[in-house]
């Protein structure tokens, strides 16, 4: 096994021969993920793309410490992940906001859970609502907000605990195309501003190619990494610029063929 602390460029997050099998009865023992081996550097924006059933959400749960691996481990700064922690924050597809709490209270709730002192919570929650452009909606309940607004609240909630790693599980999957594109742009901007490490899951090729720096292409049966594509687009390019880039079409075709090839074998 390679030494982790030998240089300053040790990975932020390392998936170390990671495997996961079903635990409960109908499919117990059947592998979900087989021997995942992958490093993510600090500040990197990595997008995982793959068909449903390729274990990409499981991979994220493992990184979040929400579930235990069958074999191997997840290392955060060289230390094994065993449980959730405030240095990793998850954004879920269906927002996972508590419906009985207002937008502001939902963020305050996360800050309380992360151990932020009581006196600081409200100020900080307002700051992060402001950051996602929702200061006017602080006192509204999730059912009074649109899907896009709810996801902004959820993103603000995740950012408010100032995580080192942001884990995003198809966060824009339930949104309409226009809202989705707006949030993609905003997310890129937030990432550049915050220098957080982001792992983003999607099954949308265009989203995968235009958001991050690396695209990890996965296949199902059992879940595995087929290729890692490092994107050639400049970090400050807008999503429109990225999509107009001469290599975009070629990369899109390549990733698409990997995905359909993987699906064919599964």
């Amino acid at each position, binding site marked *: 096994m390679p030494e982790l602390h030998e240089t300053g460029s040790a990975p932020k997050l390392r998936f170390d021969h990671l495997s996961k099998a079903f635990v409960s009865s109908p499919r117990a023992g059947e592998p979900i993920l087989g021997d995942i081996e992958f490093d993510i550097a600090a500040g990197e924006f990595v997008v995982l793309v793959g068909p449903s059933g390729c274990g990409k959400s499981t991979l994220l749960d493992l990184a979040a410490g929400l579930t235990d691996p069958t074999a191997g481990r997840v290392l955060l700064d060289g230390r094994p992940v065993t449980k*959730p922690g405030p240095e990793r924050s*998850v954004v*879920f597809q269906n927002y996972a906001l*508590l419906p009985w709490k207002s937008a502001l209270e939902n963020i305050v709730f*996360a800050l309380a*859970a992360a151990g932020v002192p009581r006196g600081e919570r409200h100020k900080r929650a307002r*700051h992060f609502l402001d950051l*996602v452009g929702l200061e006017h909606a602080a006192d509204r309940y999730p*059912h009074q907000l*649109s899907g896009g607004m709810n996801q902004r609240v959820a993103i603000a909630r995740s950012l408010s605990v100032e995580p080192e790693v942001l884990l995003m599980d198809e966060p824009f999957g339930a949104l309409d195309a226009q809202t989705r594109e707006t949030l993609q742009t905003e997310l890129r901007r937030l990432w550049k501003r915050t220098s957080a490490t982001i792992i983003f899951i999607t099954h949308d090729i265009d989203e995968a190619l235009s958001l991050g720096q690396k695209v990890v292409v996965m296949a199902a049966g059992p879940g595995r990494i087929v290729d890692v594509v490092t994107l050639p687009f400049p970090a400050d390019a807008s999503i429109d610029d990225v999509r107009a880039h001469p290599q975009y079409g070629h990369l899109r075709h390549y990733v698409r063929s990997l995905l359909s090839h993987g699906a064919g074998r599964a």
Partner: protein
Amino acid sequence: MALQKTSGAIMDFAVSPPVETRPVTLSLRHIARWSVSAFRKSIALVLLAALWEIAPRAGLVDPLFLPPLSKVLQAVWTGFASGQLGVHVLASLLRAIPGLALAIVVGVPLGLLLGVSPRLHQVFDPVLELFRNTSALALLPVFTLLLGIGESSKIIMVFYAAVWPILLGTITGLRGVDPLWIKAGRSMGLNRFDLFRKIVLPGAIPSVFTGVRLAAAAALLVLVAAEMVGSRAGLGYLINASELDFDIPGMYAAILVLSVIGSLTNSVLVSVEKRLLRWKAP
């Protein structure tokens, strides 16, 4: 490596317009809408009252057996003025409220216990089903034999009728908590106790409250029957006693008071529910 907070908000966020806004001011339009709904809700009641008044007077029904509404209202008035009706209302309430309170105190914790432990639920479910489907009225003689004809047997009757909806409401509430909320709570690092206290419990409250509301209705229903069968006070007793005395307006007065108490209880509970659960989508 924590996020660098900067004072300047990201411009695109700052200037992006609100997607939707719902003003919550009280306007003329609100008042107009409220009036229309109040009008609609009262049409049928007014018609019923009119029919009740006219039918006996026009000879469509025997006024001896169904006196006009005005006579019944008069009986309500004299009943309260003489203090007699008040005594019976109080007697009923002093059975219904303790019985319902006991049902809440027992039903909610028991429901929580059975709701969090599927195994325990599996063990007790058959017994619970059996009890739940045994009419409280059928057990009236049993309670009377065991507890005598005093207050305690009636309070236990009410308790028995009220505890099932509360118990089931609590169990259903716990089952209905969205697993995603729990997953989110876990990802925030909440321990099991906090997950329960801060996510599961508040998430279950709507269903618990519905259970309490159904229990209140069941409590009144069973209480009146119990009072009719073996009691010296209470609205159920009064209905029966008035009929035997051939005080027919008095009998309808007691029935009317009972209906009003039931409806008021329900609407109070509904409004508390709405206030408590204003976060719920309408």
